[in-house]
């Protein structure tokens, strides 16, 4: 059951410049909208699960970009500085808005993102039940084992992981377990006013907007989770924290970007994590239209 949240879409529409919002509302889409992309001096692009189209409402202007950024940051750019540095802002309902601009570098790292002119609203989806058939692959004797979900960007990792959390926490396809959710981008649970926007089950503790390696350590020290779930791992810090959590007896379920086993082994950071042997199951996710295909990977 796909919960293509009307509320989420309305939230996004409330952020869009009025003329683009009305053009979007008047347009007819045969397939669910997945992304709304705005680029300065270009027509807005709407990406659906089966292709894309350009909205006939004229180009997105710089003034509109400035106003949109102010809205996204609740008129306080400094309050979203850390997120902007990483190239996104998360708004209500776990909607991640990717941004592009001109990075300001200091000592080889990005300290600020200025002149933001491109925005990508990724519509968070909740597909209740999409992970139920996979649960036997990530559990042993009813208990979750450390698993890595791998797919290329836009492959449905986050949607699958979200439903896995619900299943683990509710005891669907396994014994109910305490889940620690290290939600660095705030899009897995989409917490608004303290409550998750998505169904993350009754036994899930959420920590948002903090580096996952640190959050994993905090969970292990203070929340005694049975399983820790996190999205898009890949850094050297992540490898250490995940290995440490596994040594402490917590299973780790994570996702990563790669489109094949070969790519997984070639990506530095990710290859290190995999080589530690922490992950007992690795599942490769492929998507055709709105269908998800999952196959186990042998390394």
């Amino acid at each position, binding site marked *: 059951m796909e919960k293509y949240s009307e509320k989420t879409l309305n939230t996004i529409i409330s952020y869009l410049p009025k003329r683009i919002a009305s053009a979007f509302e008047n347009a007819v889409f045969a397939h669910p909208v997945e992304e709304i992309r705005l680029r300065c001096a270009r027509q807005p692009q709407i990406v659906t699960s089966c292709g894309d189209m350009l909205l006939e409402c004229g180009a997105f202007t710089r003034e509109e970009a400035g106003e949109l950024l*102010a809205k996204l*940051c*609740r*008129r*306080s*750019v*400094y*309050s979203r*500085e*850390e997120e902007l540095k990483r190239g996104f802002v998360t708004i209500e309902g776990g909607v991640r808005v990717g941004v592009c601009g001109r990075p300001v570098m200091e000592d080889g790292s990005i300290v*600020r993102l200025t002149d933001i002119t491109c925005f990508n609203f990724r519509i968070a989806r909740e597909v209740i039940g999409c992970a139920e058939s996979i649960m036997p692959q990530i559990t042993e004797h009813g208990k979750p084992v450390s698993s890595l979900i791998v797919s290329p960007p836009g492959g449905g990792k986050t949607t699958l992981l979200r439903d896995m959390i619900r299943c683990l926490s509710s005891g669907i396809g396994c014994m109910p377990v305490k889940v620690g959710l290290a939600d660095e981008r705030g899009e897995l649970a989409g917490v608004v006013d303290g409550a998750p926007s998505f169904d993350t089950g009754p036994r899930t503790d959420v920590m948002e907007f903090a580096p996952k390696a640190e959050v994993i350590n905090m969970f292990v020290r203070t929340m005694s989770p049975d399983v820790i779930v996190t999205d898009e791992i890949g850094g050297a810090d992540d490898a250490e924290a995940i290995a440490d959590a596994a040594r402490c007896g917590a299973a780790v379920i994570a996702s990563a970007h790669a489109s094949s086993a070969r790519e997984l082994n070639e990506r530095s950071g990710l290859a290190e994590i995999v080589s530690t042997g922490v992950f007992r199951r690795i599942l490769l996710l492929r998507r055709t239209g709105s269908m998800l295909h999952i196959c186990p990977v042998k390394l």
Partner: protein
Amino acid sequence: MSAARLTAAAAAFAVCAVFGAVRSARQNVLLESMDDLITDVRYAASIIELEHLPVGEMAKRLAFSGKCRTLWKETTESMRRGSTFEKAFESASKPPLCPEAVRVTEKLASFLGSGDVKTEVTRLLSAAERLSEIRAIKETELAQKAKLVRVLSVMLGTAFALLII
């Protein structure tokens, strides 16, 4: 010279002297308001530096534990109704301030929220410093004015007393 005249002269003198003293004391209200505002601007800088709270949340915090609570309460209420921070701050009733101080704070409000943490903190602390400078100038001016008011009221009181006598 009757006792009644003497009493009336003394009363006239006392009234003028007290009037002068009250007027000069009242001028301290402006300095106190400026002190409160400077404290709040510095507090806002620390809220932004340490907690990165958006301007709306910052105003709420100041309305709860700042010094110029009425100003921040009104700002918060306007923002709840949909105003931007700049407009909300502009329309909120300010404590008694000199026009220069009002200009500094309104200019600050018009920029607040557009920069990164470092910029905002620098901006707020510079504004606090500028307000402190304005306050120091005002303090000197007001001290001179207060002295003048006191002297004039005593002289006026003496003149009235002499007329009555």
